């Protein structure tokens, strides 16, 4: 099953880069979003604790 999916004939030079580019785009979005969320969450929580103390 997998080999059929991978044998995309002579246009492979275009199909895989297209999938690659999409993967890179998604990867960047996911990583940046999660990193940003974690960073600001940690900062907000630490400031919250600091304020209460």
């Amino acid at each position, binding site marked *: *099953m997998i080999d*059929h*999916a991978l044998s*995309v*004939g*002579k*246009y*492979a030079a*275009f*199909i895989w*880069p*297209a*999938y690659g*580019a*999409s993967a890179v*785009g*998604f990867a*960047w*979005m*996911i990583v*940046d*979003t*999660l990193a*940003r*969320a974690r*960073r*600001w*969450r940690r*900062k*907000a929580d630490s*400031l*919250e604790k*600091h*304020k209460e103390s």
Partner: protein
Amino acid sequence: MFAALANPARFMAFSRWAAPILGVLGAGLVGYGLWLGLNAPPDYQQGETVKIMFIHVPAAWVSMMAYACLGGASFFSLVFRHALADAAARAVAPLGAIFTGIALVTGMLWGRPMWGAWWVWGDARLVSVLVLFLLFLGYMALRASIDDEAKGARAAEILALVGLINLPIIKYSVEWWNTLHQGESVMRAGGSALAPVYLTPLLLTGAGYSLAFGALWLARIRAEVWRRRATSLALRAALA
């Protein structure tokens, strides 16, 4: 429903579980759609390159949706002054730009083998996505160039609304321009005339992309809410 989410605490509680679920569902749909699509027989006309369509058309579709979300969030923030709506607008712009970028790159990689040119001016949808990319760029440039956050947000919201009103007109003018110079439309891909063996994977990846976009957007809004909370706490601490 949206008014209920306007209150940050309720939104954070809702998005806490909604974002991961949307993400997983989206990934699943995309995975299944691609698995189906990749196993489909090569198209008699486009050969294997039809397999790029499964990731190009959804990306173009989601980038249009992203701009509509940007316009909608800006409208709610401008008219009803929801602080959360502005966070949503600010959060969606980079996502929209990336999705448009993906749509453009995959569009070019699809056009090259099919029409022999990296950039196909004949494809009205591709040109509309390009203009959309410029609209996102303009939005982010305006927002980045204004130091005062409140003023920057307001100016960017007005621009997003002007852009939203123009979006259908731009799309129409590009398609009108396309038919003008091409006579008949060059590329009917993605239309309903598509064979079901390609249509189902396309619909699956389309739905998957949309859910993934929703998950990413919710997550970025959460990050934005925390960022604003952190900056105001830091400021208050400094001023106290």
